[in-house]
């Protein structure tokens, strides 16, 4: 910390700040009193500013959960919107403490780029949506079609691979944002709209006539979306991982934002460990004992977050599907808290 102070003597006037290389990320965040979270520039339901200018979405809730766990206040987050092009640089350079922006967990990103994915907050897969009028029932009938695809994502690589593997031709309409995809698709500039099926559903829900469009059964890729941190700071990785896992465990155990205070008196040992009434998990993470209590009381459990932002009662209207708890037929599964 001391080492770079001199540089800052001059730098502060021009906005140069130090993330203090010698300290751990946790110490930095605590010292700063604020978590810096890299998010997307706007994906409905996952991260988007509402009419009051507050960020909200399931990705945002992960940031909030970490802030609640570390600082005891879910609102102490600084959201840094990043484009898909610059998100990794932002994390690498220390501009953000963590990234929670619909980023697919892949081998090359985890290993090659030097990141650590700490969990999956949405299991997704790339699918296709077509107008029903087209009469297409399978993705294998899409030879020669024009496809709307967002650039700079794994989506376009999957698309290329899939069509190639099936000896089909396509031409792509490359767009930058989800909204542009939607415009292009609705106006018929492309026959097919491909992206993660969650986003497809989200987009379809906003159409004037959703029933005229269908999502094809083929899911051509695995898209586990999750938060990630820099390699090399194991403690920080653990904190982010377990802040998120706490939300999942809370749902498994039926702990909600509403009943979390009552649950403090629960006899279930896992709930006791979770809420810090038993054991020293918080201490091991370097946090206070009630870290998970703060997460649940301020952010809620995973199911609550899901229903609040992207569930069937929202304009996005997504089914839980794969993201249902393992106990209810999904694959959402948190390692045990012990």
């Amino acid at each position, binding site marked *: 910390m001391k080492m770079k102070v001199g540089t800052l003597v001059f730098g502060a006037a021009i906005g140069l700040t130090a993330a203090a290389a010698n300290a751990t990320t946790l110490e930095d965040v605590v010292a700063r009193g604020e978590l810096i979270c890299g998010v997307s520039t706007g994906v409905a339901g996952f991260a988007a500013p509402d009419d009051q200018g507050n960020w909200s979405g399931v990705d945002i809730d992960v940031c909030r959960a970490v802030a609640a766990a570390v600082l005891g206040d879910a609102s102490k987050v600084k959201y840094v919107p990043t484009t898909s092009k610059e998100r990794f640089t932002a994390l690498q350079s220390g501009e953000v403490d963590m990234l929670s922006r619909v980023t697919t967990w892949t081998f090359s990103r985890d290993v090659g780029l030097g990141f650590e994915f700490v969990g999956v907050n949405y299991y997704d897969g790339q699918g296709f949506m077509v107008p029903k009028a087209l009469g297409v029932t399978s993705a294998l009938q899409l030879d020669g079609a024009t496809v709307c695809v967002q650039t700079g994502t794994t989506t376009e690589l999957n698309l290329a691979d899939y*069509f190639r593997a099936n000896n089909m031709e396509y031409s792509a309409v*490359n767009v930058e944002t989800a909204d542009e995809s939607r415009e292009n698709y609705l106006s018929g*500039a492309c026959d097919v709209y491909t992206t993660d099926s969650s986003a497809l559903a989200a987009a379809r829900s906003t159409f004037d006539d959703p029933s005229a469009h269908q999502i094809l059964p083929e899911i051509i890729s695995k898209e586990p979306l999750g938060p990630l941190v820099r390699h090399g700071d194991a403690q920080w990785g653990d904190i982010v991982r377990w802040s998120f896992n706490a939300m999942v465990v809370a749902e498994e155990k039926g702990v909600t934002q509403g009943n979390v205070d009552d649950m403090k008196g629960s006899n279930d040992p896992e709930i006791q460990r979770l809420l810090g009434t038993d054991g020293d998990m918080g201490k091991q993470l370097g946090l206070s004992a009630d870290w998970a209590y703060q997460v649940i009381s301020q952010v809620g459990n995973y199911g609550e977050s899901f229903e609040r932002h992207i569930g069937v009662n929202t304009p996005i209207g997504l089914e839980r599907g794969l993201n249902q708890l393992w106990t209810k037929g999904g694959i959402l599964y948190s390692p045990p808290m012990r």
Partner: protein
Amino acid sequence: MSVSSTTGETSGGSWLYDPKVRSIFAQVVVVGSVVALFYFIIHNTAVNLEKRGIASGFDFLWEPARYDVTGGFLNVRSTQTHWDAFMAGLLNTFIVAVFGCLAATFLGVVMGVLRLSKNWLVSKLAAVYVETLRNVPVLLQILFWYGVFILMPKPKQSLALFDMFYFNNRQFLGPKVFFGDTPALSAAEQEAMIHRMGEVKYNKLVEASGGVENVPAALAESVKPVFGTGSWILPVSLIIAIVGVVLFRRWAKKRQENSGEQLPVFWISAGTIVLFPILCVLLSGTAVNVQYPELIGFNFVGGASIPVAFMALWFALSTYTATFVAEIVRAGILAVNYGQTEASFALGLRSGQAMRLNILPQALRVIVPPLTSQYLNLTKNSSLALVVGYPDVVGTIGGITLNQTGQAVECIVITMAVYLFFSLVISMFMNWYNKRIALVER
């Protein structure tokens, strides 16, 4: 920094006041600081890259791109290399720049002249055009035109003109002409077709066409050359026509110098260049196959096509740049003293001649330098292609490749080098032109 070092009020030996010593000292300080800064940057970058495990170097260019480049004028498959993708991007940038400059010049000259029109309504309308479009960011205009073009009919409801030209919200299509005999698909071509469409489908196609040799040109497009055997007559006759026109123009000039008679040189030259090759092709009996776009499946297949993203970009760039060109042209014409026009009239020149012989040559001196910098601006603005997904240099090497490989430094350096090259070429032209037209004065 150089400020403080050259104005420092230290007293001392007389050499301190020697301007030469001061100048050298200042330069050493400046150069030293810049070198130190660069060392600092390069050192940090190397350290950072190593820490992040990003290999530096340009080897990634020869690796498979893993993404397809479509929607431009050259399609690249995901199995081809990043270099191929870059080349496709370069071609796309080049095409939009060249056509943008042409259209901007044409529209700009027209608008500039209309703004000077004596017709109040016309000049005001031109003024509204110029003032509105030049004061709105070009990025917005690109987005706007894209929005307009994707509201055109879908492929199945395409606007058709003579069943040859089709306009829809994906492409503008027209017939494509093949010259010379197009032989039956060779073994290699057949293989390419099979690879492209799968064997089952290919066999079906052959069956439907009644034999390998009858496979529709539309589907064989990507493996068939535009110029088949025997098509040599076209380029050769074109060259002959051009040589003929050059000779004819010389002759016409001599003739005018000798006898004073003037021939309609322009119309004769244009006619020869267009008609002579056509006549040669027709008379020599070279096969000419015209391939019309056909709606097969989702899209039109065959024919010559222009993607809508290109149209939007092209429209926006040329209408935006044309406003500046219009102002330049207007200023150029106004810069030529009206006395020049009057003197030309007084000598009996007609207004067309006055324009061609006196006004234009003088106006061009004023027009060309700012015009070339507008061309450069247009080329640079074409980098905004990425907002409509037109795969130019910034979209391919500076975009997807950068994103997929993480080689930020290399990709950005390549992208910048491309534009620097363009600007170097254009400024070389400028210098040459300025030298050529410099007015001799006392």
